[in-house]
């Protein structure tokens, strides 16, 4: 009898206890029906297909660049030269340089000097471009300017003349049109290879070549750039974790939070980023460079949420979640106290989404839109790699880290421009300083000898969350991908 009386509850409570959290096994066939209705599972190899395609492209690209590399061509050319016999026949009346033997000692000397002078020959890609061609007598190059190497030869109309094209590159400089001298002359060439090693008096070409050698390369550059980006703040509201911490701090008993958090919904929309900056670059080696500078960034996010409500009495805007936590955390029956809270009731009446399904927001409620604006300075340090395709077109790949210094961040809503009562934890106050990494690919096109334009894409991701308090239940770890345009000016 006593037991029976203990099991008596009021009507609702009795039914709730009797039916809540109960389990019953459904029909075994149900899962099969669900599985049949779901989209078919992708095979593992299909999921990897995009990555395999990208990897394949990269590998093929790398192989292509390796094969096309000037150094490799040079070595092939050099081998050809050294293997050729000194013997000539009648059919060799117009010998090409490939068929002429350069004495090994001279060749070694040439290469040695080339290294010393930090000049190396480049591939014949410059031959077709008049701006970067050099025609130079082979005999002279062997004797006076040993750092020049023959690369190719073409037949002249005059069988006695041999036109030799020679190109060169300053190893420690960018490949720039300004680094080349244009000369063109048909030079009578000896028909026999033995004469190649005959020392000839210096010509005016030697003087020009010497000038080229002594010229300092363009070692540094300024880049002015601006860009637009799509920004994703990766905003995470971890109410569950926050409440656990809150309860822990208040030594509150753990309890089932039930459907409390379901009421809160938040969605990010309309995110834009703009930047303008100045960077200074310098060469680290023939292809690698270092670049750093400063840029001003402006980001704007809009968050739609039903967490925010307006107190009509004083016009302040509140976060119902925080206010309820503050008011009720010490209550003995926390969850019921929350549900009975006036703010919660107001919230349910005023700002609750009309549609219960998933993340449908009540967009008509203007107070639900919170706008955050970040103003910060971005100070990057980047390591770059440059690949030249033609005399004008280059591709730059950059990887870097940057320090961001926040100048100002504001939060407002579309209707309330002057908010004072936002919860810092909810707002996600930002650290004054945080860091991010970045990766970018830029095409560079030479407009003039020293001026070029750049265009490319850059991806940035914060290193960790940028919110001040790690326990803040709003965590932000933004990333952005954007388009960058700029002008680059080289100087020595």
């Amino acid at each position: 009898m006593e037991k029976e009386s203990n099991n008596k509850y009021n009507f609702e409570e009795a039914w709730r206890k009797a039916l809540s959290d109960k389990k019953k096994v459904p029909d075994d066939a149900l899962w099969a029906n669900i599985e049949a209705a779901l989209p078919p599972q992708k095979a593992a190899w299909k999921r990897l297909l995009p990555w395999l395609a990208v990897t394949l492209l990269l590998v093929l690209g790398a192989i292509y660049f390796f094969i096309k590399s000037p150094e490799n061509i040079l070595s092939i050319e050099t081998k050809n030269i050294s293997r050729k016999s000194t013997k000539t026949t009648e059919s060799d009346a117009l010998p090409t340089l490939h068929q002429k033997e350069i004495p090994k000692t001279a060749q070694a000397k040439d290469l040695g000097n080339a290294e010393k002078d930090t000049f190396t020959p480049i591939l014949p890609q410059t031959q077709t471009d008049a701006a970067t061609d050099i025609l130079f007598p082979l005999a002279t190059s062997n004797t006076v300017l040993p750092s020049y190497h023959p690369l190719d030869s073409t037949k002249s109309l005059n069988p006695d003349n041999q036109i030799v094209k020679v190109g060169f590159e300053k190893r420690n400089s960018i490949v720039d049109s300004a680094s080349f001298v244009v000369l063109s002359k048909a030079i009578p060439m000896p028909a026999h290879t033995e004469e190649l090693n005959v020392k000839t008096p210096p010509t005016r070409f030697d003087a020009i070549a010497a000038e080229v050698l002594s010229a300092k390369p363009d070692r540094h550059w300024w880049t002015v750039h601006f860009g637009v980006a799509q920004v994703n703040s990766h905003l995470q509201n971890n109410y569950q974790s926050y409440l656990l911490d809150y309860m822990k701090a208040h030594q509150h008993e753990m309890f089932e939070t039930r459907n409390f958090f379901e009421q809160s919904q938040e969605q990010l929309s309309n995110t834009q980023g703009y930047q303008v900056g100045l960077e200074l670059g310098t060469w680290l080696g023939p292809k690698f460079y270092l670049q750093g500078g400063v840029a001003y960034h402006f980001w704007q996010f809009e968050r739609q949420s039903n967490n925010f409500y307006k107190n009509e009495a004083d016009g302040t805007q509140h976060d119902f979640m925080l206010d309820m936590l503050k008011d009720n955390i010490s209550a003995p029956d926390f969850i019921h106290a929350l549900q009975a809270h006036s703010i919660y009731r107001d919230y349910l009446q005023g700002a609750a989404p009309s549609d219960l399904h998933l993340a449908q927001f009540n967009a008509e409620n203007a107070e639900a839109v919170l706008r955050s604006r970040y103003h910060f300075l971005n100070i990057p340090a980047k390591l770059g790699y440059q690949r030249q395709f033609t005399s004008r077109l280059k591709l730059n790949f950059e990887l870097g880290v940057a320090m961001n210094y926040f100048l100002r961040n504001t939060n407002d809503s579309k209707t309330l421009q002057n908010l004072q009562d936002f919860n810092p934890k909810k707002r996600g106050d930002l650290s004054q300083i945080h860091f991010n990494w970045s990766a970018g690919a830029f095409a560079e096109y030479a407009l003039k000898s020293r001026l070029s334009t750049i265009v490319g894409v850059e991806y940035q991701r914060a290193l960790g969350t940028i919110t001040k308090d790690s326990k803040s239940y709003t965590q932000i770890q933004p990333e952005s991908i954007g388009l960058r345009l700029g002008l680059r000016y080289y100087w020595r």
Partner: protein
Amino acid sequence: MFLKTFVFIIGHIGVKTKTRHQIRVNMKQEKQLIKQCIQGKRQAQQQLYQLHSQQLYVVALRYAQNQADAEDILQEAFIKIFTNLAQFRKDCPLFQWMKRILINTALNHNRSKLYLYPVKDVNEMEEYLSTEQVNLSQYSLDELLQMVQTLPTRCQVVFNLYAIEGYKHQEIAQMLSISEGTSKSQYSRAKSLLQDMIKEEKLFYGKGIKQQIQL
């Protein structure tokens, strides 16, 4: 006495710590499971189904008129869950989110039937409201579900939303696009019908509850 108190305190702290730890571990596992489900891994989806289907099935039975309807609702809800799992924002427990989808599915399932019955004014139903205490421990889960399922659809839905889920009449009115008074009257009717079943175990639509269950 002192030792007992010490052991009690240590044990209490241990239990609390373990509970918190367990909550965090479960959250981590759940997060992993969600990730795999979003990737479309069938094994993970089946695991999620096995984890929650039994509890959700009882919820579906509460909103359905029979077992077949409940299975239809559960099936439809799980398909929606797997299809929309990427939209789960992780700011509430996964089960609550799934339950919400199931309830919405059930409401949509019953929506056509929700407006079929004439509604009495709330004032006429006041007589059915009572504060008398009830004891349901003598009934099995099946029997209780059978009682709920025998309610008219509209009463059944309002009863579930108000008494079991804990919604207020105003919220229910918004959900079902009915007036608050209608919600109250439907609940009153549901309550009176259930009280009749519990108290008398007599005829309801011509048959006793227990007899009806056996059938």
